[in-house]
């Protein structure tokens, strides 16, 4: 059962990493112009 002492923190850490990533994206305005982002990828410059 000692494996749990490593695995549970590891699972929580990875989850927190994902959460942090999402919150960062939210804060830096990645979701502010979804329509524009979809169109911008078609521009080749």
């Amino acid at each position, binding site marked *: 059962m000692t494996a749990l002492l490593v695995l549970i923190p590891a699972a929580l850490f990875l989850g927190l990493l994902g959460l942090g990533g*999402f919150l960062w994206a939210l804060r830096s305005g990645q979701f502010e112009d979804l329509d524009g982002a979809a*169109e911008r990828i078609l521009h080749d410059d």
Partner: protein
Amino acid sequence: MAEIAPEADIPADAPIDVGAYIRTDRAGIASLNLAVENLHCGGCVRRIEDALAAKDAVTSARVNLTTRRLALQWRADQARAGELLGAVSALGYRLVPFDPELLRDGAAHEDQVLLRAMAVAGFAAANVMLLSVAVWAGEASGDMGPALRDLLHWISALVALPAVAYAGRPFFRSAWGALRLGVMNMDLPISLAVLLAAATSLHETINHGQHTYFDASVGLLFFLLIGRYLDRRARSKARSAAEQLLLLGAVAARVVGADGQVRALPIGAVNAGMTVRVAPGDRVPVDGCVSFGQGAVDASLISGESEPRSVKIGDWVHAGIMNLSHPLEVKVAAAGDDTLLAEIVRLTAAAEQGKAAYVRLADRAARIYAPAVHLLALAGFLGWWGLGGLDWQPALLIAVAVLIITCPCALGLAVPVVQVVASGLAMRQGILVKAGDGFERLAEVDTLVFDKTGTLTHGRPELVNGADIAAPVLARAASLAAGSRHPLCQALVRAAGPVVARSEAYEHPGMGMALGALRLGNRVWCGVDAASPGDGNSELWFHQPGQAKVRLAFRDQLKADAAAVIEKLQNAGWRIEIVSGDRPEVVAPLARQLKISQWRADCRPDEKVAHLRNLAQSGRKVAMIGDGVNDAPALAAAYASLSPARAADVAQAAADFVFQGEDLAPVAMALILARRVRRLILQNFSLALAYNVLAVPLALAGLVTPLFAAIAMSSSSLLVTLNALRLNGRGAQ
């Protein structure tokens, strides 16, 4: 009469007075926010950004396609705002500066709070559920010791408690607000269930208990936050209509000074008695009297009628009217808040407030549901504690189980999911849903009131006797017409197909075009007897020396499917009326043609609103279908509203639904879809109720374990979501 030479006018790229909107920081970087008109696609975004990036002074230019706004930053010492904006105006985009502080960004902030809460709840729900599965598996196999179970409970508590404290805030705040006002809302049982479940679970964990509800409390929050977020996004899509109307108001007026000099003044500095100059293509910034010049104006913003009006000295013009042909000077009678446009803004804002009084189905359900839930949980607690002889802790656990089981997970998700699926479906058929509760209101509608111009008709004149005129004659007339902005001339050019414009053609304001001896214009201009009878159509005459004068008749044509759609709607039981600002002799034949017996003509915006109020007072639920700024108050005052997409931006913002295309069919489609949406919402309520009828007795009997609660909660949410998705299946046809 003297004509103002075009050169005397300020050039089109003259600096707009945007000084008040520029913010300059300490590093010398100026920033400015602008709303962009005519922005349609990614191509537009690119053209604007490229044009600005080509300027050395610009440090950042970013167009947001979703909000249609441009955020511009440049080094203040290297360029003036006017030069930069001129480059964009030259591409054909109209820019309107705005103050981001004034536009309420509170809504966007609220969205972010919900999204963050949802992310945290999602993270906690997934991890706590993982731990709970381990506990349930250990219990089932019987080989988990109490120490390990306690450890897992403690870790669950460690994750769940902060998550509940953070992600539950939107519910706690709303519940507290309701409590202070002495009313009950759905957030009260939610908050109670989540908080009690977390607290008793912590108590159980400390006392080495067997059952904890950490997974249920964060899972509940997660599901509810999804529903809440979807709901909120649907609602906030509709930007405030009044806000957009104000953006339409002119930013700067060109005031003619006593010395004849023209200066650009901010609209706030213009007073009655001043004289302002209005260039062709500009909107009149004030209400007032024409003091110099004559020409055609487009008053559709105010009257809704697309046919141009000719104005001369002494005629009255309103703010928002577009000058079509020649420079005008206007003696200011009212500016700013005293103009008719500002009055329409106030009417719209007042009407929108009335609409906010609508109580949504989900909230109406909550009014009955919330007290019932509380009473049941209380009965469970008192029953087991007092009569059942249990200690207070297990009795409280049973009450918590009742709260969790009855919690409106399905209810909270049922309506938003149906709403989102329906909006997606409508979007694919060219209908944009702007109001979150639009479908619910539209489903209850029994009377449809149509505006005429631009709604039943195309909203622009079309040549009706083109077949009777020889093609070369038509082409010659069109080559003259190509030099004019007058809508009749433009209709002639559209009808004639590609023509070469004769740039030497001269436009005489209020009369017509001339090229040598060729003349195109009104009766007087072409020497036709002004007293001879017309047939109700708008007309142009074409005069060629030595040949018979040709009459070109124009009419605003009905949309192709208007008759079919109206008949279909009448047969389906909707009562239909026409309310138009146009003349009776135009409205009457059209109503006859569409077999609509109820019609009104010559209605001003406030009369339309009054008529809608009367209908509402006689117990009718009215949907208004109209376009144009003049309809904005009526759209906002109606029980539900639809607006065609070619309409001015404002009418779109005031309407619950905006449909695209030249057809009327989307109106019927939206009405039918709305009824199906309502049926599905009611079905989902029934499903949620049925599930409660099954589960509540079990919870009251103390048979609901955390495992059972988790399964029941997820399955009911899944069930209502799947039911909502059925809309897609049949709706696709």
